[in-house]
């Protein structure tokens, strides 16, 4: 029912505490009983109260999400009066999103707008004279959140969510009708229709979840192949691209002909850059093996950067190189030609096309045209840095979908095993209520209304 409207004071909440937008540092705040446990699991560390700790934050597979400064404030000496933690991470929206997702996975829920301040106020941690300010904050940030939610819910995403909500309503209509009106002539629980519909709903939700993850590539990072002659300036470009977000891990190549991988973070998008050491014309057998690997890497990449030494190489060299790589069809549009060392050739940084490929003139050494390259790179892979509000709204939606999905699979499992319609109904209700946080709550009376309009009830 609508008890969701009531404050859930026992919950641990998480939210971004720093100002929206891309910044050097982003601060996550957690408040509530589970805070310490969550912190411990993310950082594998037991922080002492009110001390700054430099920690490595990891996901559930142990993969590094970020290096962060972590602060732990036990209750009641904290902002909200509850157990509070702050995680000061790098400001990339993607990294922060992954951190929030991890906290949710460990039992937190996303805070409602203004909820930290609300808790602080209700726990006597704020001057009562600030009541108006807090009220204004909740009011305005709720409005902001609502706008973000609408922006996040555009197009197919919204259509699919509403389609799933409609299916759930339909499904519940059958299940609840079977329970509340057993003397009517059809028993929907025993005739298999319900189970089939449930399966369809689960599949739809699964598909939507896959799509909604903002592309699996954002989660695991994209793969970029960096090709070009050894002296074209690949490592200086790599350093330039990664900037402050330079990742920690560099795998040691097995042989000189192996591919070198670097994990970097460009504009908040995690990327794996594969340096194809020797992608050039060669008759050497060992080098040919290297070429084979390079070509394989290119065909599996999300993007290919072809680096040219603008001082030494000509347009003809570029065409020859392209022919040599023999780009697969779907990579044609995802290959960018990067002409480096314009500081020596005295050209200006600019973007153009060359042999039907996007081409950008830069100097990695002198930091010229790097911004153009990054923009071109992000445009090419189809990533547009989202507004912060939309990003968080999307995270909220994905969390809801995930819970909904878990409930439905439990429902399926329970019904198959216990055959108790009431447990199926319970899980369906919880799933539907959860989805209702996006699509609007369906009250029990609405549900009954749907039943009465669909079935001729009344003995």
């Amino acid at each position, binding site marked *: 029912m609508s008890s969701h409207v009531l404050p859930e004071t*026992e919950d641990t909440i998480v939210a971004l505490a720093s100002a929206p937008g891309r910044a050097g540092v982003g601060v996550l705040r957690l408040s509530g009983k589970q805070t310490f446990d969550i912190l411990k699991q993310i950082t594998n560390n037991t922080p002492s109260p009110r001390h700054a700790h430099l920690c490595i934050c990891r996901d559930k597979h142990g993969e590094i999400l970020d290096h962060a400064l972590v602060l732990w404030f036990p209750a009641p000496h904290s902002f909200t009066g509850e157990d509070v933690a702050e995680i000061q991470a790098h400001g990339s929206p993607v990294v922060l999103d992954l951190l929030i997702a991890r906290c949710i996975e460990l039992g937190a829920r996303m805070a409602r707008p203004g909820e930290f301040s609300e808790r602080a106020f209700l726990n006597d941690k704020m001057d*009562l004279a600030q009541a108006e300010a*807090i009220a*204004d904050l909740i009011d305005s940030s709720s409005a902001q959140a609502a706008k973000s939610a609408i922006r996040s819910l555009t197009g197919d995403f919204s259509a699919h969510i509403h389609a799933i909500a409609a299916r759930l309503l339909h499904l519940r209509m059958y299940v609840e009708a079977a329970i509340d009106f057993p003397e009517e002539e059809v028993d929907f629980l025993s005739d298999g229709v319900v189970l089939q519909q449930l399966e369809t709903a689960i599949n739809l939700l699964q598909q939507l979840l896959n799509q909604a993850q903002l592309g699996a590539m954002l989660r695991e990072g994209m793969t970029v192949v960096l090709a070009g002659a050894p002296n074209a300036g690949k490592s200086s470009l790599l350093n330039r691209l990664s900037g402050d977000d330079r990742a920690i891990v560099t795998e040691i190549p097995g042989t000189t002909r192996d591919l070198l991988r670097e994990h970097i973070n460009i504009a908040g998008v995690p990327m794996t850059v594969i340096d194809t050491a020797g992608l050039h014309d060669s008759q050497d057998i060992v080098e040919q093996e290297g070429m084979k690997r390079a070509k394989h890497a290119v065909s599996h990449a999300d993007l290919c950067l072809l680096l040219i030494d603008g001082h030494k190489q000509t347009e003809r060299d570029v065409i020859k190189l392209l022919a040599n790589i023999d780009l697969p069809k779907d990579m044609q549009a995802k290959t960018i030609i990067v002409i480096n060392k314009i500081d020596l050739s005295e050209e200006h940084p600019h973007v153009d096309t060359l042999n039907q490929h996007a081409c950008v003139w830069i100097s990695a050494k002198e930091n010229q045209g790097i911004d153009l390259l990054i923009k071109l790179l992000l445009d090419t892979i189809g990533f547009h840095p989202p507004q912060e509000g939309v990003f968080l709204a999307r995270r909220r939606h994905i969390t809801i979908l995930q819970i909904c999905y878990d409930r439905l699979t439990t429902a399926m499992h329970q019904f198959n095993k216990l055959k108790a319609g009431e447990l199926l109904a319970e899980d369906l209700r919880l799933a539907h209520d959860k989805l209702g946080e996006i699509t609007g709550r369906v009250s029990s009376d609405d549900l009954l209304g749907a039943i009465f309009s669909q079935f001729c009830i009344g003995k």
Partner: protein
Amino acid sequence: MDLSITYDVIVVGGGHAGTEAALAAARMGATTLLLTHNIETLGQMSCNPAIGGIGKGHLVREIDAFGGAMALATDQAGIQFRILNASKGPAVRATRAQADRLLYKQAIRSMLENQANLHIFQQAVEDLIVQQHKIHGVVTQMGLRIHAKTVVLTTGTFLGGKIHIGLEQYQGGRAGDPPANALAARLRDLNLPVGRLKTGTPPRIDGRSIDYSELAEQWGDNPQPIFSFMGSAAMHPAQIACHITHTNEKTHDIIRASLDKSPMYTGVIEGVGPRYCPSIEDKVMRFADKNSHQIFLEPEGLTTHEVYPNGISTSLPYEAQLALVRSMKGCEQANILRPGYAIEYDYFDPRALTPSLACKAIAGLYFAGQINGTTGYEEAGAQGLLAGINAVLYSREQTPFTLGREQAYLGVMIDDLTTLGTQEPYRMFTSRAEYRLQLREDNADLRLTEIAYQLGLVDATRYAAFMKKQIDIQNEKARIATHWVLPNSDISRALQPHIGDISREYNLEDLLKRPELDYPVLKTIESLGPFPDSEAVCEQVAIQIKYQGYIDRQEEEVERHKKYAHLTLPKQLDYRQVIGLSHEVAEKLAKNQPLTIGHAARIQGMTPAAISLLLIHLKKHAYDQRQSA
């Protein structure tokens, strides 16, 4: 009836709400008077001769857990008992009984007449004595002024009742009874929010004129289900069958041809009828693609031939009623004993009541039953019980008694009514209860009898039986939890067909949590005994273990909201002063006057942000008051 005393409680009306209210008040030791316009109709079943069903059976068991009358009367009057939803899980399982109308009335009358502290008097009530927004008693038809500290109104469909058969209409509270028009007019004068509802009833058929030979029979369950926690199958009278017939295209043609004489389809009836109990005209028109509807022929009793054809409630003219009845199989020669009719009546918007069913505007006045916009004997009885209890508490200047949505169906119903109101006659359904898995028929006593005992509603016999059951359940659960099963033991081999081989030692409780293993299976293995003698105890142990996970989760849900749900809102709160609240939300709150944050949260259109704003306002408000004090 004693004119020289001031009664603690006067109950107006002798239907299902009135009898439970009067009995509850008297059980608590209050000096109680039950006023009815006709003693012969005490405990009358005005509509179908059945008690219970999904959601409704739950209410009956709750009334019973409070020591009420309905379940025991049904055990003494039931002529066919069934468990509905037997296969869908214990929470939605419900008892339903056909009752012999006469036996039921006799059982209720006997309980009323033998109840200590209860006076019964036959007089219609025409007026209320109200002074300074406080009730002081009632005035009867012959001008008697009877004084009381509290009055419970349970006037059913009698307020401004108007009966429709075809385009003919006359004033009446029920077929054969006059309406309570003077009281209706008086209540309208008090400026309470009033509305019109409608309900209907089918024609009754002479059973001797029905040919049952071609009709499907429906018998009750064997063993016979028992309604009351204190009941037994030995109380039941002889059991008989119901029969099933169907409407057909011919029936539907007759109905369609008569719609120009239907008060519903010609706009004569203004009141809103229930969606779940449509008239046969409604069914035929709204579900035109359905060419047949199932009709249950329910006997009205052992000593009468009267039959209640459940499913053809109608207000068509008599000629059409006779033709449509005779169009059905087995009823070709049927004679009608009483015509069907629709009845319109006044009800009071229950949002004008507190969750203890007290009228917010007039202290000491309580409303229960159909007057609050509900339908059904069970819904009425349950409200009567709660109103009776609260009238007594008020007369003793004690705190009101309310039930939460997580405690009882009664709590769900009262909360729905007093926070959301109702647009149609309100009936209980299990889907209304979000804590459905906890609110079962089988545990109504475990949920409520202790509370009832504290209130003084339960006698020593019932309480002792309840205590014993509770202890037996605890003992058996403890025994199960400490009974270990070893791999490769005789017991594990006996369980093998159900759960397969076990790799390590398990206690029985853990094994019972598995979907594949049920408690009744354990009982077949003698060496696992001794098992409790009582079936009810075994049932509780089985359900409690199996559903533990779900019930824990629901309890957690309750717990999560507890901190603020019961926080009371000041009576005179000016919602326009709450910063940030939208005009629309402030208006809804002002209109509904919620008593607590929990109530406010259930008003439609309420958002988490709105509740946050309210909380902040309350905190500030409390602070400001402390400052100025």
